[in-house]
């Protein structure tokens, strides 16, 4: 009786009711393109701490392959590559945040699997990196093949496809193994570096990058086996086809640009002078492709202008200006690789 015998009491009750009604009024159908345009900023989920893909450089900026994809999509949608917000999350949180709709797109390197695509509230867009899981061991163990690792201890990070791949590989080869699973890739690498595990396993591009940063890189070797396919693709929330189309075709444009020789430097020249109808349509000189997916006619031009074509993004982050890794399967189909963009027709 003592409590709330006053105006404040009534106010509490009333404000609670009003707040509930207020929240109710904001229920709206998901239209992510409109939301992003209204907010004026593209919200990307990234997982920091992976050199080459997404990490904080010395100047305090997020850089890497994943971040460049985010810039490209931001440029396509909003016309300005700087209008992005990179939300840094741990891997399971990124997964949940995507489902819950906290971010517009996750450009972190998530492997496209059946279990993640079907019934999880997520959609994968298109494969941007073809990778595969490998093993790193110390040379002094004298191991030459992954099949000799029966009884070994593996270090890897939790929540990735890594755990399942090792389990499958062990089951297929009748091997037993011990696992130490860490919350992040950094910890598992540090533990391996300290000698906690016999084997450090993750995607091969990641392994290559991380071998160079061991205390003594020459002590370690990467085994020849590739135990899995890791097609890596940005994700969007399930159930918004328009938004998914935008992301898919922006990524396609980056690859098509490389195929047609468009770079961030010659793009103006190409737009004005190229006779190739594919290029003309893609860069918005002819046709209305931009309008058809709800964007301006410069969408692909803006994306490529901002970050360059696929090859440029690769070289800047993973290739010769970054981690120095070979492109492997990640070259154009014309050069024997797996990258192919559906035609802009």
């Amino acid at each position, binding site marked *: 009786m003592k409590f709330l015998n006053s105006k404040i009491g009534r106010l509490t009750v009333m404000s609670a009711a009003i707040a509930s009604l207020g929240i109710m009024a904001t229920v709206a159908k998901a239209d992510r393109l409109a939301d992003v345009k209204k907010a004026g900023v593209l919200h990307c989920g990234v997982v920091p701490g992976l050199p080459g893909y997404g990490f904080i450089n010395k100047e305090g900026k997020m850089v890497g392959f994943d971040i460049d994809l985010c810039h490209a999509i931001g440029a396509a949608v909003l016309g300005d590559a700087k209008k992005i917000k990179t939300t840094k999350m741990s891997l399971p949180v990124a997964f*949940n945040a995507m489902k819950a709709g906290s971010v517009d797109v996750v450009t972190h390197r998530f492997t496209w699997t059946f*279990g*993640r695509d079907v019934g*999880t509230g997520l959609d994968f867009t298109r494969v941007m990196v073809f990778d595969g899981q490998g093993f790193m061991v110390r040379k002094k163990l004298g191991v030459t093949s992954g099949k000799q690792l029966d009884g070994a201890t593996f270090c890897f990070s939790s929540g990735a496809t890594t755990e*399942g791949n090792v389990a499958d590989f062990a089951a297929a080869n009748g091997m037993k193994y011990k696992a130490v*699973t*860490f919350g992040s890739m950094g*910890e598992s690498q540090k533990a391996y570096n300290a000698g906690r595990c*016999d084997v450090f396993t993750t995607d091969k591009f990641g392994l290559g990058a991380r071998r160079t940063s061991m205390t003594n890189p020459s002590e370690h070797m990467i085994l020849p086996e590739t135990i899995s396919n890791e097609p890596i693709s940005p994700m969007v929330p399930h159930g918004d086809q328009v938004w998914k189309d935008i992301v898919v075709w922006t990524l396609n444009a980056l690859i098509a640009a490389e195929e047609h020789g468009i770079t961030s430097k010659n793009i103006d020249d190409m737009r004005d002078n190229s006779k190739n109808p594919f290029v003309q349509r893609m860069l918005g000189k002819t046709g209305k492709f931009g309008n058809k997916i709800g964007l301006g006619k410069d969408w692909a031009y803006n994306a490529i202008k901002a970050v360059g074509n696929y090859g440029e993004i690769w070289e800047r982050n993973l290739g010769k200006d970054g981690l120095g890794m070979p492109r492997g399967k990640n070259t154009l189909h014309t050069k024997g690789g797996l990258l192919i963009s559906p035609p802009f027709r």
Partner: protein
Amino acid sequence: MTGLFSFWRKGSVRSLFYQWGLVFALSFGIFFVINTAKENLERLGIKTGFGFLSDEAGFAISQSIFDYSTASSNWDAIVVTFANTIILSVIAGLFATFFGFFVAMARLSGNFLLRKSGEVYVEIFRNIPLLLQLFFWYFAALKMLPDKRQSVNFFDVAYLNIEGFMSPTPVFEAGSDAIFWSILIAFLLAITIWFWATRRQTNTGEPFPALTVGIGLIFALPLIVLWLLDFPVTWDIPKFGRFNFEGGMALQPEFVAMLFGLTLYNSAFIGEILRAGILSVDKGQREAAGSIGLSQIQTYRKIIVPQAMRLIIPPLTNQYLNLAKSTALAGAIGYADLFWAVNGAMTTQTSQTIELQAIILVSYLGISFFIATVMAIYNYYTKIPGK
């Protein structure tokens, strides 16, 4: 406001109105949240339900007291990691209390250096974030432990290296059930003796060394049974395989680092709690105990500690709760606890986010509730009559 609204002046009416208002607002809020979640899940095409618990887990767990393999179900994974959480909490709680007792003794010591060291210890470990301490200890431990091929050998039965401490495990053969029963009986006997001794002392004043006898019983009885049954136990001794020792059981560095970190961190708090409790007992009590001829140890056991307990129990309960909750940080250094399993592997492999969150919340609330209840019962039996 007269006439029609005069009932409003009555306090009881208003209070009823406010209370029902709250009930209404709350149920509306809850309904609303659930409804939103339902709509969102529908939009995303996620099906709810606990069916995923029987699916194959597909990830390995580094420490399990039950049989577990990657082919086990998600439910098994939850049980195993929940057990890991409990094991860590209980052992760390015991260690922290034990160590905290020494910290309190040091802080109360007449020796200046010891007292100051105790103070420095408390200030350092209490004031640095636990997560930072865990990282530090884990990587410090890995740095100090020897390589697998230079293991420290303990009599050819146990070994210490960077993968942890490998020791033999007993393998129980037929007839070994009797050992477990004998341990149980010894425990019951010890408790009975303790009750009897307390009663006798209250009635006649004659003391009885119940603790010593009890501990003796718990060790002696199973040993006698073992001897009578001609030792139906063999040992699984670790042997060096291709990469490391196999067989036996391993105390892993992740577990040890967690234990170390939690013990040091919490013992600083527990030490302060115990110290405050002991200081709260009136000086006259100590002097009176001395004057009736009780020794220093007797004074502590019979006079100071029972009174101090009254003040110690509530903050100690809080500390145990904090300890149990902070085991959720274990995943950061690779110890396979409940939160690690659910928030790591399961979250990305299943779509049942909400169900997983519910499992986590219920588990930890259960642990907290259990600790609070046990401590409340203990408090009830140790409180001073009439106070």
